[in-house]
């Protein structure tokens, strides 16, 4: 079974869960006066769940004839691409998200940019530090001073 049909299977699951909530559990907490309304909070989701289920079943059972098409990247040969780098970068993004508050903007951003290029295979550390440092400071200055959005620059124990 091709990837698009596996995804369709997941989507069927999502639509079923969504539909179950819309049809059976959502209306339980509805205030009595709202029940006289022609439209309930669940009306629109009910329609959507049916449409979604229909569309995902069409894909799942391959009812719409089309020849398999290879996209920009052939996922069947994913290991031939630089999958490791991509996964590492995504992990780095998650770490960045978690460290932004405790480490402060400047520290975590510099770390992100330096490690990001290191993952991609860059080894000229002095240039990387310089580029990351300048970029981090410029962005921090623009966002917090020019746009006026507060971002804690330093780690919390310094009290930034």
């Amino acid at each position, binding site marked *: 079974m091709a990837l*698009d049909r596996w*995804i369709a299977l997941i*989507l069927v699951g999502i639509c079923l869960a969504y539909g179950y909530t819309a049809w059976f559990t959502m209306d339980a907490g509805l205030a009595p006066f709202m029940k006289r309304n022609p439209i309930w*909070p669940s009306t629109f989701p009910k329609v959507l769940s049916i*449409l*979604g289920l229909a569309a995902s079943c069409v894909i799942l059972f391959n009812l719409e004839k089309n020849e398999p098409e290879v996209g920009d990247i052939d996922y069947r040969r994913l290991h031939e691409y*630089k999958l490791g780098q991509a996964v590492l970068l995504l992990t780095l993004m998650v770490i960045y998200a978690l460290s932004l508050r405790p480490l402060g903007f400047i520290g975590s951003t510099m770390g992100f940019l330096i490690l990001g*290029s290191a993952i991609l295979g860059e080894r000229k550390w002095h240039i990387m530090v310089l580029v990351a440092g300048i970029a981090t400071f410029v962005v921090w200055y623009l966002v917090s001073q020019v746009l006026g959005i507060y*971002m804690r620059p330093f780690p919390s124990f310094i009290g930034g």
Partner: protein
Amino acid sequence: MLEGLLIGLQTALSLQNLLLVIGGCLIGTFIGMLPGLGPMSIISIMIPVAISMGDPSGALILLAGVYYGAIFGGSTSSILLNAPGVAGTVASAFDGYPMAQQGKAGKALTIAAVSSFAGGTIGAVLLMIFAPALSSVALLFHSAEYFALMVVGLSAIAAFAGSGQVAKAMMMTVLGLILATVGEGALFNLPRFTMGIMDLQSGFGFITLAMAMFALPEAIFLVLKPKVIEGDGGEIKDLRITKDEAKSIAPVIGRQSIQGFFIGVLPGAGATIASFLGYAVERNLSTKEEQEEFGKGSIKGLAAPETANNAACTGSFVPLLTLGIPGSGTTAILLGALIALNVTPGPRLMIDQPQVFWAVIMSMFIGNLILLILNLPLIPYIAKVLSVPRNYLIPFILFFTLMGAYIGQNNATELLMLVGFGVCATALRFANYPLAPLLIGFILGGMLEDNFARSMQLYDGVAFIWERPMTLGLLVLAVILVILPSFRARRAKLKRKGVADGD
């Protein structure tokens, strides 16, 4: 109309707004040139900046400038490197790249710039004529018609936007609508589908979703498969074109401006379809000897797609500004930005906030002019961005994606959602699911439900569907659009490898 024009000029010619147009065009050209980064990613990265300016006309002017710049930048890399940065400029490479190989890169860029300028300008004139007319018709619409119109728009997008697979595009639209129902809506004051998670109380962030759908997958694709860029396109010199050449491309520009504009107006069809169709039409119209030239460096073959894609970009603003219904991914992102700035595009826009409407039109003229006189001489220098090593480029793209989601909400959970959605979006792209319909569905979802609820309440049930003939007509049209999958095969052929979804 004259009064409106003057209001627009007054707003657009303020120093700040002029700087915004110039900045937007430059940034757009700069990033649009990078292969793989389409206008949608650039605009979604720029949105937080635009929103935090707080001035709707300024924001829209900036974003429109970025949009034009991105298309222009995309044609530059198509011509110089045969590496289109944007799907809408793939057709420009057919004849632009052979010209560059023959040492006529400068001439090709000039033709591209002149045709883009003409396409954009004529498009803006047509917009000025058609938008007010359309919006006075739109004022007669009830919420029932609005509901039906949005359904038509969404199904047109599903029918045209997918790479030939209507079911997938429709599924993505419905998924977008489903995502839009998460959170607490103004309509019922009741949290829906939040699963008790507090962070979902206000629903998914639109910027987060836009970044996750476009910018992040494109960056991941760049990591997975480094694009090989061959050659440097030679030295760029001799930007002049002769009188004869000007004479031969003038009718092409005239025809394609009008054709491109009207294709751009249709929901779902955009710059990409307009440019391919423009190329094909001009090829059929030209003489036998000229037809031989097509594909080998014909100036007509370059002028046609360049004119058409810019005219189509302008045309896509018509449904956005008059009906408040975006026809393409890019205009959907603009719509989201406008809503965040407390402006509701639609037929009332021209009456309630004429300065926004007219300033955008005026800034289109100014933006096109700037692309012609400022960007063209700078192109040899801007093209240097193509030599930035990807080891530095990719972390920065990822960083700006994260920053965009963060400064909008100031919430680190948003970043985790961004990564999560980004991974899902990448998987969806692997399987050839179109992502633009998802975002359009998400943005239109709230409005669609509001109008649906309002007409249900007015007619005390679904009677509005058959009691209002226009609503019924539009809904029937929507059904036909989904069921009649006529344009599929052609669209699938247009999609080529290694190109970002253009609009």
